């Protein structure tokens, strides 16, 4: 036992007090993988005056102004409804000012893929007029700063496999399954108006008057008109 031993013992032995934090470090392992319900409220959201800028696993909100906080609060609420299967679209503003032009175009185009549907990276590349840029499209989506709200999970590989997803393939499966199981269009039998799921008008439709439609033409064919607030006809 020489001087070095003593020094090392002191250096390493310098008690690192963890206290109750040790328990927090034990991840919630029992209960299996993260489910959608648990995922709600596990986002951290950053917003500016113009809208939501980032969304990633974590908690809380980073917003400087009152306006930014309103955007963030709206995003939290809409995400909760979406993950609970009560919302088929997002109306919260997204601020993509810090994003490169090509990526912004890809993200905007991904936002046009309807709820519950999927598209391949190659198709998306073709739609933005860059048919050979499927990989670049994949990278642009992979770096999506606001996943879920900008639905990059609806883009899958041409052979039907999932491709990469920031929250894991399991989560991509769950989100797509959720979208398939959630009716996107809801009509009210008394007003004869058809809304997108999540529209404030849709949320007031009573259980007895609820009708589910597959498409706007479907609803039109039986005399329903599209809602003027959520505009299901304009949304693909």
């Amino acid at each position, binding site marked *: 036992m020489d*001087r070095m031993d003593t*020094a*090392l*013992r002191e250096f*390493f032995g310098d008690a*690192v007090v963890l206290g109750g934090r040790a*328990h927090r470090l034990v991840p919630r392992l*029992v209960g299996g993988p993260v489910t959608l319900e648990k995922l709600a409220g596990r986002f951290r959201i950053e917003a500016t005056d113009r809208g939501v800028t980032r969304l990633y696993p974590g908690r809380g909100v980073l917003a400087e102004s009152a306006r930014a906080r309103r955007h963030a609060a709206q995003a939290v609420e809409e995400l909760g409804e979406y993950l609970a299967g009560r919302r088929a679209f997002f109306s919260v503003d997204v601020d993509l000012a810090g994003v490169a032009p090509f990526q912004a175009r890809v993200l905007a185009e991904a936002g046009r893929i309807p709820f519950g549907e999927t598209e391949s990276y190659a198709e998306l590349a073709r739609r933005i007029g860059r048919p050979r840029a499927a990989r670049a499209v994949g990278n642009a989506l992979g770096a999506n700063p606001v996943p879920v709200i900008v639905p990059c999970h609806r883009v899958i590989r041409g052979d039907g496999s999932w491709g990469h997803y920031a929250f894991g393939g399991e989560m991509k499966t769950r989100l797509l399954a959720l979208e398939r199981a959630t009716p996107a269009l809801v009509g009210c039998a008394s007003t004869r108006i058809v809304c997108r799921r999540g529209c404030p008008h849709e949320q007031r439709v009573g259980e007895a008057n609820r009708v589910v439609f597959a498409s706007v033409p479907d609803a039109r064919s039986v005399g329903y008109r599209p809602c003027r607030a959520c505009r299901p006809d304009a949304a693909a």
Partner: protein
Amino acid sequence: MDEATFTRHAEAYAGRLYAVAYRLLRNRADAEDAVQRTLLKAFAARAAYAPQWAVSTWLYRVLSNVCIDELRRRRPPPEPSPTGGGHHAPRVEPMDLARALDRVPREARLLLALHYVNGLSYRELAKIRGISVNTVKSQLARGKTILRKALGD
């Protein structure tokens, strides 16, 4: 090993794992992250846990792999500029020691941390790293020699 047993062990060892990770990675966030990752990995592989191992050995083994990965990801520390070495400090200052540890190879650094933080024996270290007791001894000796040289002893 069932989930409840695993959670119990995880809670029992989280603090000790954290102490080692903190000493090796030197910041709270990375240390917490390393412990989390260790527990998640161990949990995912809990079916493969062989009862002839002590639970602690197994968890330390996973942790040491996670820490080694993290250290490997980091850039190597810049070569310290020679500062009039050879002066004899009466006592080794913690800051100097921390800096000197950066120059010790990862494997030896890990063994030093496990040995001095949690007082694990050579035999336990050998089991954790899957190496012989003699290799443990020589690695520790090598690490200490490098430290001594770096500290101008």
